[in-house]
């Protein structure tokens, strides 16, 4: 582990992506009154971004190699 593996870099990259997704300015883009299927887009966005990060994390850490 002294030299981080490719997977380690991927996880760190995902962390940085998460920091970006859960933050200004992305939040501001969705912080509008519009709705998608009746649900405010901000809520749809936050939960789907959250779900995406979790799914990506699962694929990254559980995947082989």
């Amino acid at each position: 582990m002294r030299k981080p593996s490719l997977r380690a870099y991927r996880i760190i990259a995902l962390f940085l992506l998460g920091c970006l997704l859960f933050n200004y300015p992305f939040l501001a883009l969705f912080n509008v009154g519009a709705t998608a299927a009746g649900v405010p887009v901000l809520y749809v966005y936050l939960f789907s971004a959250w779900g995406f990060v979790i799914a990506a994390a699962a694929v990254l850490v559980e995947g082989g190699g």
Partner: protein
Amino acid sequence: MLEGWVIVAASFAYIGVLFAVAWFADRRAAEGRSIIRNAWVYSLSLAVYATAWTFYGSVGRAATDGVGFLPIYLGPTLMMLLGWFVIRKMVRIVRLNRITSLADFLASRYGKSALVGALVTVIAVIGILPYISLQLKAVSTSFQILLGYPEIVMPPRAGTLVAMQDTAFYVALLMALFAIVFGTRSLDAAERHEGLVAAIAFESIVKLVAFLALGVFVAYGMYDGLGDVFARAAQRPDLDVLMAPLEGAAGSYATWVWLTVLSMIAIVLLPRQFQMAVIENTDERHLRRAAWLFPLYMLAINAFVLPIAFGGLLHFPEGNVDADTFVLTLPMTQKVEWLALLVFVGGLSAATGMVIVETIALSTMVCNDLVMPVLLRIRALRLTERRDLSSLVLDIRRAAILALLLGGYCYYLLAGEAYALVSIGLISFAAVAQFAPAIIGGLYWRGGTRAGALAGLSAGFAVWTYTLLLPAFAKSDWVGAELIEHGPWGIGLLRPTELFGLSGLDQITHAMIWSMIANVGAYVAASLARRQSAAEHVQATLFVDVFQQTGEPGSSWRAATSAAALQALVGRFLGPARAAEIFAAHARGRGVKSVDELEGDRDLVRFAELQLAGSIGSASARTMVATVAQEEPLGLEEVMTIIDEASQVIAHSHRLEEKSRALEAATQELKAANERLKELDRLKDDFISTVTHELRTPLTSIRAFSEILHDNPDLDPAERQRFLGLVIKESERLTRLINQVLDLAKIESGLAEWLTAEIDVREIVLEAINATSPIFRSRGVQVQTLAAESVPPVVADRDRLLQVLLNLLSNAAKFCTPGKGRVQVRLAVAGDRIRVDVEDNGVGISPENQALIFEKFRQVGDTMTEKPSGTGLGLAICRRIVGHFGGRLWVESEPGRGSVFSFELPAAAAGRLVANA
């Protein structure tokens, strides 16, 4: 159905099930078939993060802020991604150093400092106590509300109740009982509690199921799906703002970011999270699963928060029902009794899980880092001489658990009503965040010192107290409100909620900004101000470079003691039987038969210290071990000596390297010289064999012709004349050869006679051309002379120089094609040297032969097929002659295009010096 006794029975039954789960897990652990060595159980146990605060409070916050509650769960999602790097490092450190708590971790990192441990404990207790009381409040409130069924009545203020009638009081006692039974049953060197972890994982499932059931019920039972809930809410102007609440109801983006950061810290550094994620971790690889499973759990438990919040707001438009209780009151209004009871149990499980783990973690800290160090230092108690201290340690922990729960209960009675649930939780988060600089610095910066940790923690905690705790007290009327509004002594700049005039921020953001500036600033400044001690340096390296270590860390104990004394010491804390077992196992591991044969060396002392550290903390363990093994920590002087020795060794090795390099060079030179000698020897042999061969050839022909003449007296006169001519010619050649060999030998041995004088090269060149003109004419070779009108004289032997020129010219004639040959002789002055070129348009010399032709007996061409047309010594002699007069002779040639033989001699002024030398 929901009468009081049913609720009470359900609560007790639930806690009974918890006891059963914990007991079962403990039994399985004792049998060696652990049920918690499992990534799923580990991930679920981390969900102790979701407390009653999540269960009830998230809905309450969502009802006023919309998505404002989410950063508290997004932060941990991000942090768990880094878990493989950060948490795993902590797990490794904890395992190698037998660390038992967060306070122990920091104390151990900063030179096993009891002071750091104590400070961390105090901050943790003060910061977490309101959080515990928050859980008790949630249980009590939910019980009161459920008791009012079928009416929806908000409970009266806590203070109006008498403790003996209050359910929260009994719940607190039950939790204390559970914590005592499963948290402090025995002293374990690893300080792990399998039963506890299993129970917490079970509780995580219960609260998730309860919350999801309610969410589905509200969204699909009371309303027509998620879209319906939001659509109805959007029609209410007061709720419409919650659809896009950022920069509005949910506060600014700065608040959002700070809450995310705060929760990232909390997910690791809350004492209960540290206990579950780090101390109770059985396998580092479990962190991989937890990296996504735990965030997924939080996503699931938060998915229905907004629908429930909006459902509640729509259902109770008058606002007479506290949003924190929507979770419970919504099923009650629909008369779904089983769901109301399930939700109550879910809330109870969220609260009990948090309280139990938190009190156990805090009690370990209070006992190991606050009480024991003090007790051990009070000589009057003579504790260090007591035979069995293990029961004392356990009793202190039990008392600490009870005290913490009662403290939390008191806080709840006195102040619990002042804030909504979320605000209390955030104040605790902010307190715990004060550990972050010392922890992160401790993990990644070797330079962080004990003084830095103490300064940072104190400064951060002081700012936290001033900017968060004081305003909280003010709301409970414990301090005057005018202090908050106008600042102490009426100084506006010192207002606790707008310190130094920093306004426009919410309280948490404001407090975090100032406390982090103070904390990090003090930590770094104090760390840089003074050099760290040797003991601190040892610990810092152990922590920062934990992944570079193999096996157990080294020891700073240097004095020896006896194995029996160490065993007795460990026995006093772990019980004599357990100590005997451990030491016997250790003896077997070291390859000796019994404990008596173990040497009381530093490794054994370190082993004993680790065993003790597991039960009483590193700082106390150090104190205890010091009583039997005289500790001699590395002093500054010794460290300097070591460094000094190290630099001397480095210097020595440098010198050694240099010497070996010099030796190698000498060896190379010797090798080269040897090669040269061998080469010379070979050359000498070659020379002799060549000379004899060259001498034999003319001799053989002379002898052959002489024999013919001798044996045939009646030979034709013309024939006889021809043979005699050949004999004479061969004799001349033989003479020439012998002369040249002698000549060369003389030159080489330095015995040659040189008649040096200032001579005119031009004259010699012309003479040589004259002398050789018959040869050129006979071969049909044209000679051209380009000689400067006059050249400076050179110092040389006239005859020798003539010899050189004759040789060069006759060679040129020899190698030119008859009839087509052209030879050009040039004489020029080049600076202070005279240069002579003899150029021909003959066959030329290939580059590889150009050096060889100046060697003795080397003739270019195949000597087997071509009759040699010279002695093979001419050029060798020429080069030596020119060299003798300080000049040089060389050739430039291209096969097929002719050659240029040139030599240079220094003009007289320069040449005289050489000649006289």
